[in-house]
């Protein structure tokens, strides 16, 4: 994989080192200091920082504003963008806006249905889906063109990412097919759904490798530490498309309450160690949900620190 954009994340992946990304969730108020604080907590431990886009359909400070803030702090943001809330005019407008501030990473998502969030009665948009958003960013970058046909000179230099969930229905083979479709659309890196079922993930990666897809797209394995057994059970039962095997519940639940967080971190670290050996895994995406202060420990204990300094 060669370097084709100014993205530091792309450079790290191309260098052959394991890349590390993490994410920060914006606040549900106009408090800009929150993102600054979270960015500072993790900046030395990751290569790029995703900012979620109204995740789980809960209204928050917009991803673009937070990404600009991180960029102005000298950090490397990754703009998460869902197609739920904006039509293609607004999406492309935000992509141009991000690029105008030198933001070079984007994660193209369809987004959760608004039914999950704090505005379940609102209308949704879904003018495009994630794959069409990938196509759109690629066209803007490589052809200097908008969907409407307008051509322009200063192009957004985006390293294009998307998500993949190896654990969703109907089966692993179809999940590989759908990822192949994202590759055909132009995706360059993937941050996966949180991995707890390692056997299933390995099966997914084997199919990817068999088709040579791992050469075409960089897979960053999704890691989310469990805070306690309640969270593990919630994820198993309530989050659609999440695969939490019973032995994870037993393991976290098997230690006293005050030790469960620590056990969750240890589990995450072990998962990283094991996933490093899986062919095609190029790095890790650590989603410590409202637990950003633990990213440092996970990265350090996962043997991913210090982050290589690339020229």
């Amino acid at each position, binding site marked *: 994989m060669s370097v084709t954009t100014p993205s530091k994340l792309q450079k790290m992946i191309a260098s052959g080192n394991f890349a590390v990304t993490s994410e920060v969730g914006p606040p549900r108020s106009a408090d800009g200091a929150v993102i600054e604080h979270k960015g500072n907590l993790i900046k030395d431990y990751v290569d790029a920082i995703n900012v979620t886009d109204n995740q789980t359909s809960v209204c928050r400070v917009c991803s673009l504003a937070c990404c600009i803030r991180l960029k102005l702090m000298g950090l490397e943001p990754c703009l998460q963008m869902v197609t*739920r809330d904006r039509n*293609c005019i607004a999406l492309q407008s935000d992509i141009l806006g991000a690029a105008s501030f030198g933001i070079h990473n984007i994660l193209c998502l*369809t*987004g*959760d*249905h608004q*039914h*999950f969030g704090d505005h379940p009665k609102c209308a*949704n948009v*879904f*003018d*495009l*889906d*994630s*794959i*069409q958003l990938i*196509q*759109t960013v690629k066209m803007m970058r490589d052809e200097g063109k908008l*969907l409407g046909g307008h051509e322009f000179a200063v192009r957004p230099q985006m390293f294009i990412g998307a*998500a*993949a*969930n190896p654990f*969703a*229905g*109907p089966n692993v083979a*179809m999940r590989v*097919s*759908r990822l*192949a*479709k994202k590759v*055909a*659309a132009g995706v360059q890196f993937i941050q996966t*759904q949180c991995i707890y079922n390692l056997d299933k993930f390995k099966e997914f990666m084997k199919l990817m490798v068999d088709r040579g897809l791992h050469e075409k797209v960089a897979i960053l394995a999704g890691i989310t530490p469990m805070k306690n057994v309640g969270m593990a059970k919630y994820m198993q039962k309530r989050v*659609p*498309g999440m695969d939490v095997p019973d032995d994870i519940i037993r393991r976290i639940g098997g230690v006293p309450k005050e030790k469960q967080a620590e056990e969750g971190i240890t589990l995450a670290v072990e998962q990283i160690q094991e996933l490093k050996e899986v062919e095609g895994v190029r790095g890790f995406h650590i989603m410590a949900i409202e637990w950003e202060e633990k990213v440092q420990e996970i990265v350090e204990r996962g043997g991913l620190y210090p982050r290589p300094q690339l020229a």
Partner: protein
Amino acid sequence: MIKAVPKPLEEVLDLVKDFTKVLIVGCDGCVTVCEAGGSKEAKVLASALRLYFTQAGKQAQIDETSLTRQCEKEYLAQLSDKMDAYDAVVSLACGCGVQYMAEMYNNKIIYPGVDTCFLGVNEERGLYAERCQACGRCILAETGGVCPIARCSKRMLNGPCGGSDQGKCEISKDVPCGWELIYERLKTLGQLDRFEKPVDPKDWTTSRDGGPRTIVREDLRI
């Protein structure tokens, strides 16, 4: 066909409680099939209103009738002799019928008696399910005969999303994932190759996004 459900009685009562002469008009089209607004439902609603007015000690005249279709002028015209005798009309047709009646009887108060829901099928008696959102450019040929616009909660053209779980949509365990259905059907038809080809953004101009739609069929107009 168009699927609808009767409005709650309280809502209709609230609309008509201050009138003394009310006509209930059923429609023998779609709303009869889904048992929301046919002649039978018109009778039932009229009796309920009569009972309400009697119990409230008010004098009122509540009559009911039904038309072959309320989305055609010829049938709506059959009401022209009667209309003057009523203060208000409750139409049990779909939203099209209610509006068309209001257009024809411009000075009359016309209320809707049903909630018009979607274009769907009769899975069983009393169980209706959406199948089409009338997008104006049908793509069923490409999607194994399953509509991603009507049957995927995010109207994705390149699904399924990461929320599909054991055949169900992320929004509810009671909603089948439209994209899993598409995948299975393409598999059955031996057309899985379609699945890996990205589908370009849809032109929504023929859908509601293009503004109110009209069909002009020159071949049919004399």
